[in-house]
């Protein structure tokens, strides 16, 4: 899985592409942990290029959110496709995560 990382002012943006499933969730987890270890405390995960997420991917997001909550940081998501949105809704993740329609809206709210 390809993950494009960038920095927008104080916000660290991660854009995973394609599928986030049990076969590559560990890779995603390592990248999230690496960002946190570098001291990033405002994370935006942009789902615009993500086609699919399984519970293995949800697990990594929950782990990241818990860590950031403990350190006083924030995690924000944006651009969920309708099918990914459904999985988030069923999982109760829409009440845990702040979700914006696209990257511009998310960055404006985080700024």
């Amino acid at each position, binding site marked *: 899985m390809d993950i494009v990382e960038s920095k927008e002012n104080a916000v660290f943006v991660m854009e995973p592409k394609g*599928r986030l*499933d*049990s*076969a590559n969730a560990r890779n995603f987890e390592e990248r999230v942990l690496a960002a946190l270890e570098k001291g990033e405390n405002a994370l935006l995960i942009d789902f615009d290029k993500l086609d*699919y997420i*399984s*519970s*293995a991917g*949800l*697990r990594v997001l*929950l*782990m990241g*959110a*818990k860590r950031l*909550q403990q350190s006083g940081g924030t995690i924000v998501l944006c651009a969920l496709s*309708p*099918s*990914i949105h*459904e*999985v988030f809704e*069923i*999982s*109760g993740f829409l*009440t*845990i995560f702040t979700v914006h329609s696209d990257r511009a809206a998310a960055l404006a709210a985080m700024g």
Partner: protein
Amino acid sequence: MDEDCVEISMTNDVQEIASLAARIDEFCESRGIGPMIANAVNVSLDELLTNTIDYGYDDEGLHQIGIVLSRQADKLVVEIDDDSRAFDPSGSPPEVDLDAPLEDRPIGGLGLFLVHELMDSVDYRRTDGRNVVTLKKHLID
């Protein structure tokens, strides 16, 4: 009337789930079954297959897993057949407290819950040393 179905065979390797998903997307797309239903089937299969592959076998050997997708009048039926240890995923999974605040949400435990939420029914039988799980999803996108 012949059933509209396709049989897919894979081995116990989670890396094969992506190509299985591509076959399912193609099956659904070519029959006008919407992406929400295709995704629900893919998430459910992913959870069940990952469980089986990670925890179901007593050896390190190669095992075949069969998947049959069939389009019936008003539903999509998916049958998964494997020779792993007996495991029945049809019972209600532990409740997930969806309103719990972040600090109280356990990490993990969502997989089977998602399968039961996304599918209309989950059935199981053990036949000749094999697990056969049948998932049904009504075709209302």
